[in-house]
């Protein structure tokens, strides 16, 4: 196990432009001592996985508020697995109704952070659950 910093990719999948949360989380994780790469808007699942591979990240955080999460997040997980990134911790945040959370967890999203979550809790969850690569 290396002693390098935890590397996190914060990504905005789909066409959603709401990036206040993604940017606040990115900056909070950086301030909590992690290395954070933010993709910017309108990322396809393919581009997100490509970035995760290239940046050799431990964590992928997906932010989505448009309601397209059930269409887009499964594809990201599928591609991560296909590229052998099974041990990357995947978390999601945004406007995601409770009803959808069990299905997302089933697929491999470790945590879903909904509105009102403290960034300290997000950082703590990542530290507790990341599998160092």
């Amino acid at each position, binding site marked *: 196990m290396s002693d390098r910093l935890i590397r996190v990719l914060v990504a905005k999948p789909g066409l959603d*432009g709401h990036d*206040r949360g993604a940017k606040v989380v990115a900056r909070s994780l950086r301030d909590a001592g992690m290395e954070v790469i933010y993709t910017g808007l309108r990322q396809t699942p393919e581009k997100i996985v490509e970035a995760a591979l290239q940046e050799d990240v431990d964590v992928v955080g997906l932010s989505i508020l*448009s309601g397209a999460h*059930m269409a887009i997040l499964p594809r990201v997980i599928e591609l991560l697995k296909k590229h052998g990134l099974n041990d990357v911790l995947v978390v999601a945040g945004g406007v995601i109704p409770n009803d959808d959370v069990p299905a997302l967890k089933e697929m491999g999203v470790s945590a879903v952070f909904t*509105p009102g979550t403290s960034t300290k809790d997000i950082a703590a969850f990542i530290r507790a659950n990341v599998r160092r690569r």
Partner: protein
Amino acid sequence: MYDRESLELVKALKREWEEGSLKTVLSKHPERKERFVTGSNLPVERLYTPAEVESLDYARDLGFPGEYPYTRGVQPTMYRGRLWTMRQYAGFGTAEESNARYKYLLKQGQTGLSVAFDLPTQIGYDSDHPLAEGEVGKVGVAIDSLADMETLFEGIPLDKVSTSMTINAPASILLAMYIVVAEKQNVPADKLNGTIQNDILKEYAARGTYIFPPKPSMRLITDVFAYCSKNLPEWNTISISGYHIREAGATAVQEVAFTLANGIAYVDAAIKAGLSVDQFGPRLSFFFSAHSDLFEEVAKFRAARRLWAKIMKERFGAKDPRSMMLRFHTQTAGSTLTAQQPDNNIVRVALQALSAVLGGTQSLHTNSRDEALALPSEDSVRIALRTQQIIAYESGVTNTIDPLAGSYYVEALTDRIEKEAAEYIAKIDALGGSPAAIEKGFIQQEIQDSAYRWQKEVENGDRIVVGVNKFQIQEPPPTGLLKVDPAVGERQKKKIAELKAKRDGARVEASLNSLRRAAEGTDNLMPYILEAVRSYATLGEICDTLRKVFGEYRSTVSY
């Protein structure tokens, strides 16, 4: 407003009070906090008296409603004459479903329509585009062609309603569709009333639904100004929006400053395109957020009105008073809604809506209690609309004009917001204007810093959010949330396929070819877009034609 003698007396009495009654109480009972601030962190004094607004000059700074500098409102009678337009932003799924929601809202006493489009429509992709997967009909209605627009307004007479459309990068195309639907209803264009948002600068800075680079985007906007000044005299050609800037995290001062700086950029661009300021100035409109600090928000609306009037008169030499009037729509602040104890949002929205009315808004959208969780249900939307109706008909605040004017606090805050916003605008001017400031990332960085500070304040407990970091309860997961039918994407794809099979393919091709040639030249693009729309070219085909000529905007990212 006060003579020297009475001011001196007030100051002396205030000192006496501070040394006497106040000191006695403070020595036994200190105040709750060291420092009191507004929602946007402006300092707030313990007490405001004439001494805090000693430089206020009634005639110069406040004036009369419907007269320069419009601090007290843009109409001489304000809500005594006509109430604001109650306009709930709505749209989801297919045009059929949204049409039914509009008819429901009109039946409930709503007085204007406000169309929410889905993200593929806002970014110029048809529903069958790969990037539209999962997004069709989600945050608004899916419009792929004139055929969908005909369905959207079926049975709604366009000479009887005013319609606001939240559409930016492809605004001219949706406006063209609206004009053609009206033609088919035998309503001439000069009878059309409404607004297109058409504000691309804040898309780059805060909202994200851009398509083309800044230069051709500004051309599309000024083409709309020019076309409408001749053909749609009642149409609001742009809604220069602070709402999304505020939602992205900006303070009240930044909201005013960045919005008016964008306004200045549009006026500059239109003048450069050969229009005179009074030709398009009267049709510029604005859109602000109503956030949670009631007095600060009222002061913000008043300050924005006064500052814009000065900019149009002094900076641009406008002569027509209508060019100087800042008319605005307001939406309550979505970012203040909590997923926790969602019914509390009804109260938040009521207070925010009250600030918009006390601030003299021309139209208002009240958010629904469940919007931190999902799209609003019909019941929630009805409560939101009823909130406006209670303010309008029961609270009594509409009986007199600008009722908070003369409040020492509100006037002091109005001055301060105007002054700080003007300082920001000077800084943006020094960077080369708002397009340059956006390109340099200055505006985005300022907004992000404010958003980050807000979050940290909530997490440190310096900022209380009821139900989130104080007064929490264990609650069952919410029920009755609206779910968009996932089959809407498939239905839209089928509609596009049917449309393409039955339309006149040669006419579509010819219209898109002329549009491409026009885009390569300098003609006003509106007539070409109208012809493409009439031929039933899809939104995606029209946008792709323009993408080929104009290219696409790529944002540079920081956080």
